[in-house]
């Protein structure tokens, strides 16, 4: 029965691939659901923590506390700590469970004192993290508490996000994104597709059974009906090869593009300097103010590498025997300036001014230079890419307090926006602010 044969072939020939493509569609949707979910999660955390946050203090939820904590965390802790992973210091998630509040407060205010007191946990911690000294922070109780609130909030969010990542079911209601219309649609689609898949498999099973009971099938038909899943054949099938090749191509392309974007970026660049000057010692341990040596930082475009006479202010008397200090003496005697290796190399086409950022914008050195007071050898902390500049200009609020330059601008800005005045609002993203 040619007609039938054609029919079966048609039926099987189309149904199976249909199932396959449905499967792949399903996979695709699941993947994209993941990424969307991830994005909404992170943005949710950063912008509007409107979920229930569990504060450590008994009062329970308070958005303002978390927001305050986030701010404090970003300015004080972020450079060394993350909530969910080890950086320079330990991951802070769960710290409120590991140690009690008083211990935490003591440690934050003066970790060295805690270590010196013989606290075992503190000593272990100090050893574990290569004896990195945590900068003492003179924070109020409430401030520390709000930081902890933030950490707790953040930690729980990350966990629930991870749960969503598992992505088994759309029924995890504990972590609904607030504006998750897209997610909802996607989840709906996944469910529908899964149902269709189930139905299709049922149909296939049913049809196979039905056909097997028929007698008039010839050999060829039977082969088709009873064909087993053949992995080798699948692997060799042009469709599979094509898909694999395509995915491979995409991956290669992406890594090439990523690689190209890394060209000229020297993040982490820590060249050996002619004199082994330690910021950790000077800025960290002895807490010498950055301005003391970098004299231009509040009045010039460049912060200035200190001239040898500044070194001599102290090293005229101190550590005069040190081999490294001898190098400075030699430079002065031979009248040959010290040739430091430049770490931060902005391209010539970009204009950067320290006075604008440090004095007017009131930025900390660490914002761009990292925990310089803990660096034995200075390394480039920030990528110094335009994207990095721009993202900071998009987020940073302008320090307008007590500066008559901004009075009118703040007023005008307030007329049409409830957001605080950010750098981007006063033209901080325009080309000719940095390129001329």
């Amino acid at each position: 029965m040619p007609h039938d044969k054609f029919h079966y072939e048609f039926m099987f020939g189309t149904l199976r691939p249909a199932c396959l493509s449905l499967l792949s569609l399903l996979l695709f949707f699941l993947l994209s659901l993941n990424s969307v979910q991830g994005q909404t999660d992170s943005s949710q955390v950063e912008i509007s923590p409107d979920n229930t946050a569990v504060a450590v203090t008994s009062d329970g939820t308070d958005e303002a506390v978390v927001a305050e904590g986030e701010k404090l965390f970003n300015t004080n802790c972020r450079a060394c700590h993350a909530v969910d992973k080890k950086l320079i210091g330990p991951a802070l998630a769960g710290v409120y469970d590991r140690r009690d509040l008083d211990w935490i407060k003591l440690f934050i205010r003066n970790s060295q004192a805690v270590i010196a007191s013989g606290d075992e946990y503190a000593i272990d911690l100090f050893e574990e993290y290569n004896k990195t000294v945590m900068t003492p922070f003179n924070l109020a109780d409430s401030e520390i508490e709000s930081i902890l609130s933030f950490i707790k909030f953040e930690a729980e969010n990350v966990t629930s996000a991870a749960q969503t990542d598992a992505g088994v079911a759309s029924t995890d209601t504990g972590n609904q994104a607030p504006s998750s219309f897209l997610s909802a649609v996607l989840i709906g689609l996944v469910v529908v597709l899964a149902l269709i898949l189930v139905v299709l498999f049922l149909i296939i099973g049913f049809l196979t059974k039905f056909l097997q009971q028929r007698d008039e099938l010839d050999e060829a038909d039977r082969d088709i009906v009873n064909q087993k899943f053949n992995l080798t054949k699948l692997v060799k099938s042009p469709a599979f090869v094509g898909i694999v090749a395509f995915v491979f191509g995409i991956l290669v392309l992406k890594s090439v593009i990523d690689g190209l974007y890394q060209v000229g970026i020297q993040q982490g660049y820590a060249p050996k300097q002619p004199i082994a000057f330690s910021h950790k010692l000077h800025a960290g341990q002895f807490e010498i103010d950055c301005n003391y040596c970098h004299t231009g930082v509040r009045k010039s475009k460049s912060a200035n590498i200190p001239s040898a006479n500044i070194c001599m202010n102290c090293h005229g008397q101190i550590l005069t025997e040190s081999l490294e200090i001898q190098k400075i003496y030699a430079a002065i005697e031979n009248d040959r300036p010290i040739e430091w290796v430049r770490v931060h190399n902005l391209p010539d086409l970009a204009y950067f001014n320290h006075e604008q950022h440090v004095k007017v914008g009131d930025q900390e050195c660490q914002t761009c230079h990292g925990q310089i007071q803990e660096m034995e050898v200075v390394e480039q902390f920030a990528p110094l890419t335009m994207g990095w500049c721009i993202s900071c200009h998009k987020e940073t609020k302008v320090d307008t307090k007590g500066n008559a330059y901004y009075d009118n601008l703040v007023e005008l800005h307030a007329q049409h926006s409830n957001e605080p005045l950010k750098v981007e609002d006063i033209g901080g993203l325009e080309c000719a602010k940095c390129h001329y």
Partner: protein
Amino acid sequence: MSNSNKKYWKGLEQLTNDPEFVKYADKEFPEYLPINGNKQSSDESVEGSSRRDFLKIMGFSVAAASLAACEAPIRKAIPYLNKPEEIDPGVANYYASTFTQGGDYCSIVVKTREGRPIKIQGNKLSKVTNGGVNAQVEASVLSLYDQERLVTPYANGQKTDWESLDKEIKNALAASKNIRIVSNTILSPSTKKAINEFIAAYPGCKHVVYDPDSAYGMVKANQDTFGMGGLPTYDFSKAEVIVSLAADFLGTWITPITFINQYAKRRKLNKVQKEMSRHFQFESNMSLTGSNADYRIPVKASQQGLIAATLYNKLAGKSGKGTLNTSSVDVPFIDKAVDALWKAKGKSLVVSGSNDPDVQSIVNAINQLLGNYGTTIDLNSQVYHRQGSDPEMSQFIDDVAGGRIDAVIFYNANPVYDHPQGGVLKTELKNIALKISTSDRMDETSVLSDFVAPDHHYLESWNDAQPQKGQLSLCQPGITPLFNTRQAQSSFLTWAGADETNFHKFLQKNWQDSYFPESGAQDFENFWNQSLYDGVVELAESTDTEQGSEENDDIGSNEFTIDLNAISSALKSNYHPESTETELVLYQKVGVGTGSQANNPWLQELPDPVSKAVWDNYFTISQKFARENGLSMVEGKTKIATLSVNGISVSAPVLIQPGQAHGTIGLALGYGRKHVGRVAEGLGTDAFPLVDRSTGTLRYEITKGITFEVTTADHQIAQTQTHETFMGRETVIQETILSKYQQDPAAGQFAPKISTWKGDKDKVAPHTVTLWKHHKEKYVNHHWGMAIDLNSCIGCGTCTVACQAENNVPVVGREEVLNRREMHWLRIDRYYSSSDVDSYASLEQAAENPEVTFQPMLCQHCNNAPCETVCPVAATTHSTEGLNQMAYNRCIGTRYCANNCPYKVRRFNWFKYHDNTRFPENSSMNNSLGRMVLNPDVTVRSRGVMEKCTMCVQKIQAGKLVAKSAGRRPTDSDIDTACAIACPSNAIVFGDMNNPESKIAEVLQIKYQDRHKTVEEPRAYTVLQEINVDPNIFYLRKVRNKDDNNA
């Protein structure tokens, strides 16, 4: 213009609509030019590259790029060993100082970065120059970094050291009897004192002073008529009527920076000031001053004396005084000038550029008749800019030829080149046993000298200057001496065996002795420091001790004596009312001057204000003369001509100059240098040998015995005038005349209306139809704008050089200017205009003596910028401060923006001009010495990107930061553009239009209402209003003080 049938044109080829001009006029980037071979297009590049070449290059670049990407080069950061207290890397320091070059003077402020001068600005505290500068002063900072400077002293052509040089010179001087010091005018009293010490040590020594641009005729006339052998101060700001007999007082005459400032004060019109001066100019060449005159009358040089006499006679007739017995000349407007002068008695000024004492005596007599002494001319306040004596110099050269001189010191003077008898000197110098030059380079004189003891550049020197009675100024170094040079004054003191050879200390001592007691200050240290800080000191009238002994203390007008008969007969023999001879008038270009800074590429590339020619000098001839000789000139393509007089012949290309008096030929001095450096050597023709010295004073007009022959040799003069044309949209220039302005301040306004979709009936103002509605509403913070007063802009080009220095604009050289690739961000468009150009006959008439308008043209920072719309990569965008921004690194060089710019102000980098041996002229970028002049705050642009005026955004940003740092709003004094600072006539005003207290708000009469601004100044207009690009640069309409609106 809506109200006249005036025609504006930039060059003759535009006026005659020459086919070749038309062909190229619409092409800003003429594609017929070879892109590869700019200098020598070898066969290879003509063939073009094959596909394989392309692949090879491609493969190589990919490999090179990936290799380069592997490891970034290690860059060093080298701090001071001992940081000077006042220097902070990244912060500019400003020092008051003084520019002197011979008798040319300017009080300046030097901007230094990390201890190197990078920019010169005017010193506003100076009563002499009032914060003005000119192109030569602006460019002088580049001369500091000239590669051709000597790095060490020389003895007999060999390098030597100072010690052995001093020893040899002292021995040789001791053996010499007749010693001469030859110099140009010396303005510095302390230098003169040092020279006097030298003369005291060597009694056989005399000091000979000459000036390459002599004003001895004036000095002599003043001596004859007033007994005062010097030059008086002029005050053009008090003159209602100015008559200039070929005196280029805005360009090169005596002290143009001062005069420009004074002149411009009387040319500004606003709500309060409704009157302006009226300016008549009788001249042969079209000078910068003449092109600014209300009435410019081309006359032959041979008529000059008689014009002065006629003026005198007519005025004497009115006042009933004795007249001169000379034939009167009939030139247009002379009666008008006489009437105007007579009406403005005591408030007028007659000046003459002639170096003939007789003419100058008559001019003195005219001013005396008009009662101008004491008002516009002050004999009591002498200026010292020209102290040279022509007879003394002639005597010196005769002595040299006669072998009567044993030793000579050329103190920063180069008479072999810039004196008419330089040729004689060149051959006769061998008669002198000891020849010393203090020149900073191996110039024409120092190559013939036995010893060269190179002087510091003025920016490395301590010095003082007294440009005018009672006005002193100090010069302090802006940089440690770059080379092993020594200040010439120290050399004099050393050779004189003085106790104090350090000129800094000598100078201080002199000030302590001479000026400190007069100053009334308590403490010398304070007086000295304050004087250094200010750069200038004004002393009471009586304390003038240093200058010439001939000077009388008080010269009253009653001491005037003149021998009319003697002058009459002299004039009769020297001048002719209707000479038919060809005459030569030598002049100086505003940029190159007498050629002492000829090796400065900024000056060479500065277009001549009138001819707009660069890198060349040429014979300027009249249109009629050209027609008679069958000459034509299109796109600078012309013929070489040869001019012979008194057995000397020179060759130069001819340039047809509208306004050139028929029968006269102009030729610029300062070119044709033989030993100066690679920039200027071999450029143009040396005209100094042509100067006439038959009458005892140097005459720059030669009226007899000239043969002029045009050869068949071709030459192309690089002119910028016809580049970047506006395609016939002539409303770019708007002008009116004074009487109409007084009736209606908006007279001459062009108020275009455009048709809408409704058809031609309902025409509307252009700004009502726009695609961009809300740009301006975003300007909440600042709104930068500029106002350029076409009435007080004299077209001198100072702003062009200032912009070049501030913004690292490359020099492209003659070849590339010919290829229309000049890079100046700010150009000055010079428009000729003439009425009723319809017929061929009237066309020739028009070219005879057109009116001239200057219009500085720079990026207009349009609010609806056409360039921004077409950039495919958003490299040019708009800021919220009204600026049109250009991100070089983003630009991919499509040049769409330039094509779409109606003002043609965008410049494309056809080549990598920096570090490129093919552009040796670009000396500020092609060697490590020259690069010291670059502004570190501005990117040096590379090949393939567009660039243009940024409104000095680096200065805006810096000024804003100063204000933010101090917690206040910026004011005018925080932020100004390089062009506005440099402008000696204050025609350019820049500022924040959002700030009601700013100068620009006042100039443009901006009214503020609910955050909306309206410009209410009736003279203000924007160029090409009809296309509604809405520029932020406003021009104030030109008003001529003429009687009717026809030329």
